[in-house]
């Protein structure tokens, strides 16, 4: 399959006050591929993907320069409808953060705030989302139980289902397995591989094995700078930049 560009980042810089956290990043992210962003803690990985759904708007005193083009729209522009954007670009967070509501209400929430009223449609969507998030079989008899009763791994898959129900084009994963055990991590990774058939996926991780396992493309960020970006297999075996090589071999990070 040909690579189609889904997200095009050009000359992107980001500031926390006067600190330049991202430095002139340019890269293309491809449709139906998994792109991993790796790098040491505090290098700007999360900051980077949180620009794709304008989540950094919530942080006062920040400023972005440059362009991020998603589906023909410069999403950093001033007139952009961020609500609409966030429906197109979903996000799964580092810590599972289900709402203190029932399992069903968690998944239907995105439709509820979109003012979807058709009960049958909502039920179908919830079931489909839970199935696609590989959670349905485990919880189908207790959809009305509180989401907080689920295990950490189940909660994270619920958060994925919640995100799928809105039918986004892109899903951003911000270290989705950071607080999960190896078995739950495996399930999430398998799920990501499954989901890329229908979605464009960007995943931040500081687990290099994970990046190697799930991603097609990998970008190495170091102190806000995009050091290297390319096909994962190549980046992990024959890195072009000496800093990438040092990071991969565990010299720092």
């Amino acid at each position: 399959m040909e690579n189609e560009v889904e997200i095009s980042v050009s000359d992107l810089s980001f500031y926390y006050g006067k600190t330049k956290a991202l430095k002139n990043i340019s890269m293309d992210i491809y449709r139906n591929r998994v792109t991993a962003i790796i790098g040491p803690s505090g290098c700007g990985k999360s900051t980077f993907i949180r620009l794709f759904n304008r989540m950094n708007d919530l942080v006062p005193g920040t400023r972005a320069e440059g362009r991020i083009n998603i589906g023909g729209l410069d999403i950093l522009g001033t007139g952009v409808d961020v609500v609409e954007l966030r429906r197109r670009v979903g996000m799964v967070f580092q810590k599972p953060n289900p709402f203190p509501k029932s399992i069903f209400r968690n998944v239907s929430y995105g439709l509820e705030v979109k003012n979807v009223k058709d009960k049958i449609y909502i039920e179908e969507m919830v079931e489909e989302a839970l199935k696609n998030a590989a959670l349905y079989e485990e919880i189908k008899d207790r959809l009305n139980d509180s989401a907080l009763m689920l295990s950490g791994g189940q909660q994270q898959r619920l958060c994925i289902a919640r995100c799928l129900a809105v039918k986004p084009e892109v899903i951003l994963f911000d270290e989705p397995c950071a607080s999960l055990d190896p078995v739950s991590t495996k399930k999430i990774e398998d799920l990501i591989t499954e989901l890329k058939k229908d979605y464009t996926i960007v995943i931040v991780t500081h687990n290099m094995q994970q990046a190697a396992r799930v991603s097609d493309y990998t970008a190495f960020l170091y102190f806000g700078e995009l050091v290297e970006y390319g096909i994962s297999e190549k980046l992990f075996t024959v890195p072009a930049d000496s800093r990438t090589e040092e990071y991969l071999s565990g010299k720092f990070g």
Partner: protein
Amino acid sequence: MKNSNISQKAGFFILFLCMFITLFFLGVLLYFIISKGINAISWEFLTSAPSGGMTEGGVAPAIVGTIYLTFGAIVFSLPLGLACAIYLTEYTPDNLVTNILRISINNLAGVPSVVFGLFGLAVFVKYLGFGVSILSGSLTLGILILPGIISASREALTSIPQSFREASLALGATRWQTIRKIVLPASLPGILTGVILSIGRAAGETAPILFTAAVFYMKGYPNSVFSEAMALPYHIYGLMMEGTFPEKQSQIAYGCALILLLMVLLISAIAIYFRQRQRRIYNGK
């Protein structure tokens, strides 16, 4: 080793003693009120108006008046205080201006209640022309408890993890939807705690209603928000200070005190029940 053990034991003992002293005084207070007030209470006391020059009959109009005034105060200050707290926590950044606002609100909580009473007299009774009425008294009490409601609501709102807000916004909810559907329901138990404390305060205050709402005696019951009203705290004050038959009247006063105490306890119990129920829902049980 031995020394630290002894000082630990001494520490525990002092803490225990402090707790015991506190409980002791609370117990004495309750015993005092109950033992002196219990004899006054009867069905007639609860349901009829005073008679015989304040030496006989009941205190029903004062009970009703206190309920009206407290209810009015909450109706007025809960929406206003909550809106104010939402605005301050959800819509304004944490900067100098909001800090000054927060400090001002906290200081307002420390203003003596008689000052609120004078304010109510000047603004509601005179300037706005509401007269000595339930409306004036409710508004004055409402302003009195407003800082408490705002502080408690703010605290409840800020205790909601940012991750809930982020999750909601990331799913394409607007800020207002996030507040209404996620933040407010989750912070309801904390807000209710503030309301409980405020109810107790509003029901028991005398000074704010002294010039704005309360009368020592009236015929019948208040029939509109512009009526004046009897109220339990003021009734107690009147019976003890202005009576001509101290013997009989002081017993009625203690009866009133006991009723006031029970009313506040009852309202608190109802609010606590709702708070616990809400907490159970939110903890997933």
